[in-house]
């Protein structure tokens, strides 16, 4: 009798602790609604995780802690080192990598459940079989897809969209093969060999799905893989009949979907187009647009630019991926502070897809000690450009291309942009006249009120700061 009570009380305590953990995750995410409470929210989330893992150690199925501790120590050290040393500019790769690891872990746990069934250790049911296949599918696709995204962002492979003949047909056939094999495996007797084949095919699918996606579309891919990593965890929760996995997975799945949706809207493209459109595979020839014919750009020296900035009342900085590439966030802040000392009103305009992941620019500028109340979202800053003396575009391109507003033939027509061309003066800092990642020429550069400041963003900003001090 006592033994029986003991047997039911422990799982109950563990389940109750899981409920606490799930609640902490939700409150933690809720506190991310403001920068003031966000940090404490993250701590709550981490606490929830600690509770969940700690109570799991009391699970009766566990016979030895040796291997658990080995895994925890190894993973904990690697995670801590990664988190401490990663550069803020490399955050997209980091999140990609973590997504992939989470997906792989979910697939491994679900896969082990299949092996147990194959070895006769447990009986299985249809719902478990279905969710095992789903978990392995989503988890492995998340893993291999994330590894490709990581390699692209880290520039281990080309960032451009990789295309080849019959690409979609091959992907579709592979997808069909996976579904067929999965459906066959669900009611069938255990077949570890076929199951392994299933997993390998899923891994290949993940690779093939991400290679045709170009560098500029990475924010969408990272957000989508983020969602997948959550779905994979939830599917594993179905396999293990574990609610905390289901709830947490669903939260992350929802979060990733919302971000994916925001990114797609900000580029005025459907998710299908982003995933299968192979945008930016071949660059459009510079000057191909009729509007550019016979027009030339006007450049400006750092000294003249400094004078222009020094005597203006309001300046808006528009950072893009070029800023991240040249690690120029600290130099922008230095320039901005010099201007503020002169009484110039300084703001920063952040396009939702600036950078290589959602919110990337905000993190970089925060790292450079730019107060977050100076960072403006697109909707809030756009009406202000008209009243602004100088807009300074630093390494951004497609997100400030006015063609998106009026040129129906432009590939980016309809994409919401920052209306920098409406400012009294525009200074564009750019390495060269090469087109941006979408491979489109930018008519902004040819406008009468636009001046180009060529060179690496950081070098140009350093020169500007020096020149401004001399004014």
């Amino acid at each position, binding site marked *: 009798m006592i033994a029986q009570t003991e047997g039911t009380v422990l799982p109950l305590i563990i389940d109750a602790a899981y409920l606490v953990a799930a609640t902490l995750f939700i409150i933690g995410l809720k506190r991310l609604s403001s920068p003031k409470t966000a940090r404490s929210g993250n701590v709550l989330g981490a606490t929830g995780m600690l509770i*969940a893992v700690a109570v799991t150690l009391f699970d009766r199925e566990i016979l030895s802690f040796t291997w658990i501790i080995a895994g925890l120590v190894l993973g904990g050290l690697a995670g801590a080192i990664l988190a401490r040393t990663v550069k803020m500019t490399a955050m997209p790769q980091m999140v990609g990598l973590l997504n992939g690891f989470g997906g792989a872990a979910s697939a491994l746990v679900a896969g082990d459940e299949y092996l147990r069934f194959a070895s006769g250790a447990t009986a299985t049911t249809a719902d478990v079989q279905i969710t095992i296949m789903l978990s392995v599918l989503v988890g492995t696709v998340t893993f291999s897809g994330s590894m490709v995204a990581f390699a692209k962002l880290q520039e281990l492979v080309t960032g451009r969209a990789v295309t080849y003949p019959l690409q979609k047909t091959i992907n579709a056939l592979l997808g069909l093969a996976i579904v067929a094999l999965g459906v066959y495996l669900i009611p069938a007797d255990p077949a570890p060999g076929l199951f392994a084949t299933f997993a390998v095919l899923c891994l290949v699918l993940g690779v093939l799905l991400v290679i045709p996606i170009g560098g500029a579309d990475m924010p969408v891919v990272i957000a989508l893989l983020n969602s997948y990593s959550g779905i994979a965890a939830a599917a594993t929760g179905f396999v293990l009949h574990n609610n905390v996995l289901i709830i947490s997975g669903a939260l992350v799945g929802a979060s990733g979907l919302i971000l994916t949706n925001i990114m797609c809207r900000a580029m005025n493209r459907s998710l299908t187009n982003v995933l299968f459109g192979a945008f930016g595979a071949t660059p459009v020839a510079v000057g191909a647009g009729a509007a550019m014919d016979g027009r030339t750009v006007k450049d400006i020296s750092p000294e003249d630019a400094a004078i222009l900035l020094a005597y203006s009342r309001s300046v808006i900085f528009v950072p893009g991926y070029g800023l991240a590439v040249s690690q120029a966030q600290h130099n922008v802040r230095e320039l901005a502070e010099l201007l503020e000392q002169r009484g110039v009103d300084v703001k920063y305009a952040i396009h939702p897809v600036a950078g290589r992941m959602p919110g990337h620019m905000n993190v970089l500028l925060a790292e450079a000690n730019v107060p977050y109340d100076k960072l403006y979202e697109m909707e809030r800053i756009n009406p202000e450009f008209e009243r602004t003396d100088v807009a300074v575009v630093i390494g951004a391109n497609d997100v400030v291309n006015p063609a998106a507003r009026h040129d129906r033939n432009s590939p980016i027509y309809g994409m919401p942009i920052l209306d920098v061309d409406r400012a009294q003066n525009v200074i564009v800092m750019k390495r060269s006249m090469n087109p941006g990642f979408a491979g489109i020429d930018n008519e902004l550069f040819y406008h009468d009120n636009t001046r180009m400041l060529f060179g690496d963003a950081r070098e140009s900003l350093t020169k500007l700061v020096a020149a401004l001090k001399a004014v």
Partner: protein
Amino acid sequence: MLELQSLLIALYVFVLAMFVGFEVITKVPQILHTPLMSGSNAISGITLVGAVIVAGRLESPLSTVIGVAAVALATINVVGGFMVTDRMLQMFKKRQDGGQ
């Protein structure tokens, strides 16, 4: 029949949690989207709970190898995710007083 019923209850939990997720996450401002991704990413490492059991139940050598790999990967996800999120969030500061 019973298994379908438990599947349905699990689906209830999943769907309701999705709605909670949508409600909560739509309120996260754009400037915090990167920490949101890394932080929610860390939460998806909850699969660690399942991995710990696989690594500890000594079912078979293969199973234990799978378990250890899953524990290590999920722990990188969890520890790396929460730590890097904290590192980012501590950088977000309001403008210092003195100016206006």
